[in-house]
């Protein structure tokens, strides 16, 4: 009887995305409860990032619906979706390279908060994510891992209810990866989180429930142990390395 009272926060129904003749995401019914940390895994090209981009409004679904807190957001503009409380960290660091870390965080905080609050939020986030020493450096000059942190911090600054993280640990050192996992667990106290990752050790650190994508569809869904033990999953995704 896990979390019987949890509300459904996000639900997609028959969500589909075609690029010409290619079906990137096909007929996906996905349900996420408030307070979850969910991991999406799957081989490259399985449609995970496309799925994320439809949730955040960067791509318009070909058909189907995205219900967030009961409202259909399919086809809405990215800024409208952001205002309703969905924040996304994209796969490639998606930040303002020509601005400083402070300016990046300020702009993000300003998107949701009343004036005067931004400065406090920037200070708190910089403190929490260890960005204090680099606040006045241009983001474009930072290492890949640091830029990932800046982007994650920007997303947090907008105070979303649902945070989508596309490969948050990619390009990070082992130490940074562990820190990221800690941060995600901490964030989970205030937000529901979906993570796309490849690193199984990282997934083990954070996820209670895993959804496996394959060829644009949901292949299997279950606990980490169930999914890892699933023969079909081993075959299409995990098994090849072993």
């Amino acid at each position, binding site marked *: 009887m896990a979390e019987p009272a949890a509300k459904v926060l996000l639900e997609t129904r028959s969500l589909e995305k075609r690029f010409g003749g290619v079906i990137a995401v096909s007929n996906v019914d996905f349900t996420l409860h408030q307070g979850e940390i969910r991991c999406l895994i799957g081989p490259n090209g399985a449609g995970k990032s496309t799925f994320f981009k439809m949730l*955040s*409004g*960067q791509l318009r679904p070909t058909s189907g619906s995205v219900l967030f807190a009961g409202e259909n957001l399919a086809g809405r*503009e*990215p*800024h409208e979706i*952001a*205002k309703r409380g969905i*924040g*996304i960290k*994209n796969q490639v660091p*998606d*930040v*303002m*390279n*020509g*601005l*400083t870390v402070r*300016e990046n965080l*300020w*702009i*993000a905080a*300003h*998107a*949701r908060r009343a*004036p005067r609050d931004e400065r406090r939020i920037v200070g708190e986030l910089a403190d929490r994510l260890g960005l204090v020493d680099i606040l006045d*450096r*241009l983001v*474009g*000059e930072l290492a890949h891992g640091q830029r990932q942190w800046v982007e994650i911090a*920007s997303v947090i600054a*907008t105070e979303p209810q649902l945070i989508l993280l596309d490969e948050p640990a990619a390009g990070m050192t082992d130490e940074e990866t562990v820190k990221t996992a800690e941060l995600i667990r901490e964030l989970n106290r205030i937000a529901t989180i979906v993570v796309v990752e490849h690193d199984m050790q990282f997934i083990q650190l954070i996820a209670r429930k895993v959804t496996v994508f394959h060829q644009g569809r949901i292949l299997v869904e279950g606990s980490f142990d169930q999914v890892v033990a699933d023969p079909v999953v081993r075959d299409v995704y995990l098994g090849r390395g072993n």
Partner: protein
Amino acid sequence: MAQEFAFDAAVPPRTGWWLFVGAASVGLALMPMFTDISVQLSLSLIFILSLLALSMSFLWGYVGILSFGQTVFYGLGGYCYAIFALNFGFTGWALLVAILLPAVFGLLLGYFMIYGRISDIYLSVITLVVTLIFEKAIRSTSGPEYVIGSVRLNGQNGIPGVPGLQLPGMSETLSIEGVFYLAAAAMVLVYVGLRLLLTTAFGRILVGIRENEGRMQLLGYDSRRYKLAAFVLSGGIAGLSGALYGIWGNFIAPEMFNLNQAAQVVIWVIVGGRSTLIGPIVGTGAIQSLTVWLGASGVGQVTLVLGFVLMIFVLAFREGLLPTLGAVGRALRDRLRPPPAGSGSGAESGKADQGGGHG
């Protein structure tokens, strides 16, 4: 000093910048005492055209939109002022109309381009085409049937006898010296206003959009609204420039809309440096002086020479005059005063490189 004109200028100006603005204002205020009328006339024109350059560089350098046809607002401003002032005589109101009407036209044009998700390159082309359409349309109004109120549009002959500005409480229209002060004040105020605008939340958001529009949308900003607001503001400034041109020369003509004029604005901005606001003013002054000199000394071939200058800047000094001088200044300073161990000039040059990659 160069830092105040730097690319990422969303930080509040320093004391040095205020001193510079103050000194420049005092210098401009005293200038008519030491110069004759012809110098005042040519400087006034440079100030007026600088406003046009500022309207473009604000949009291009800080928002990332190259509006090639800023002259559409410039020409509209000129015609609005002339038609309103000749019909009603209230030149102060005419000046206001000449700012507002181009801004409203910018709102319409910008709405269709920006909300229609036209890519940046098409936006450049469309604004240019629109200004050329205006030129063509105005040129074809030489017949007596083309009258607005009591003013004949006069086709390619333009409208002569545009009244000078007479503000409430003044017994006569502005003298040449008065126009000099008006143009200088407008330039300084618009420059300071745009510079300070960039330190506001609105300004920072514009810079954010230039840097990464997609990310700004994902943070919850409707980037189209901000871009449109910037486009409208820039249209109003260009309109002011056009009206002042009419006041300065007592004459307006369809040439204000033409390709030559549109291209010159781009040259001023590129030569001066689009990543700064002071650069385009300097660029306008330098190119305008060169143009006048080429004409007066009988060298001719103005277009050819300007094209050559543009090529040199695009190939060798992509950042433009002022940012290049700033970089040279910093390099010299670093050489004279060795930096503390461990910190090279990498950060500085990295900053300069950033500027070239945008817009």
